[in-house]
């Protein structure tokens, strides 16, 4: 019988140098390279002339785009709230006959986020 750690299946025993450690070192090297090549912006200082337009951080870009087209209560609470509730309850919503609709709605969610992110980039 297969158990939690896959006993009964082919096992990998960790030994030096571990694959995980090598992958981690590659990741760190890539992160240092990106950091050296693309410095993080410091933004506009408080003493500078006032900005006429400020974009949200990109992670909240989809919500900023929504707020351009729908009332704040809908764009900032209702729509994100429905998606968040769906995501939290996904394992239970996708049981039995709900499996396929839940997967379609999940795909719709991912697609909507990507479209809104593209609009955020497009609108600047």
């Amino acid at each position, binding site marked *: 019988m297969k158990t*939690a750690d896959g006993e009964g299946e082919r096992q990998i025993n960790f030994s030096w140098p571990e694959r995980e450690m090598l992958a981690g070192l590659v990741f760190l090297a890539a992160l240092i390279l990106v950091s050296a090549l693309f410095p993080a912006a410091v933004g506009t200082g408080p003493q500078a002339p006032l900005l006429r337009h400020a974009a949200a951080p990109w992670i909240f870009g989809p919500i900023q785009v929504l707020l351009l087209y729908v009332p*704040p209560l809908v764009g900032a*609470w209702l729509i994100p709230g429905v998606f968040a509730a769906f995501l939290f309850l*996904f394992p239970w919503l996708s049981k039995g006959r709900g499996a396929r609709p839940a997967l379609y709605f999940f795909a719709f969610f991912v697609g909507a986020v990507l479209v809104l992110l593209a609009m955020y980039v497009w609108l600047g």
Partner: protein
Amino acid sequence: MAQKRGFLNHIRPRGVSEKAMSFGYTFCLGGVSFLAFVVLGFTGILLMFHYLPGEKSGYASVTTLASVIPFGGLIRDLHFWAGQVMVISVSLHMVRVVKTKSYRPPKEWNWLVGMSLLVLTLVLDFTGYLLRGSQESGAAAAVAVHILTLLPGIGRPLAQMFLGGASAANSSTLMVYVWHCVALPFLALWLQMFHFWKIRKDGGVRPL
């Protein structure tokens, strides 16, 4: 059975299933997220030696870090990029879990922990953005306060509790700083430890 006992043995068993180590199954997205979190913690502590929250000191200390302190710019850049990587890797990790149907019983409760970690990651990224103390951060703080106050009754207390009077003029308040540097990272760390432990308990990362 010995390796079934103990927290550390769940995190780091002597051996794991070959499938669990398959790159094509997990794409290492959970591991990348955790590694980014470790980088964030390490660089964050170094940044705390020089960063001062406050209306004038927030932005000033960021520019000092970026241009005066030796390696301060690189440490800040690492902190920034690790944050962006973590947001992307946690999001992709969620998509991978759906693709491989790894949310099915008995893993549904761990899905909830993972979703909480996704929300925490977004909030951590946002509070980090506010701590820059720039005009853009101030605008983001003003929008966040406005959005929170849309909630009748509890909105204003929530804004005060989470943003501590952050405004367009001052986004790097002490309250935001404490949330970003202490409360949220420790909560995220605790949830991640539980998440990893539960993965092993629920059958490891392998096709069901």
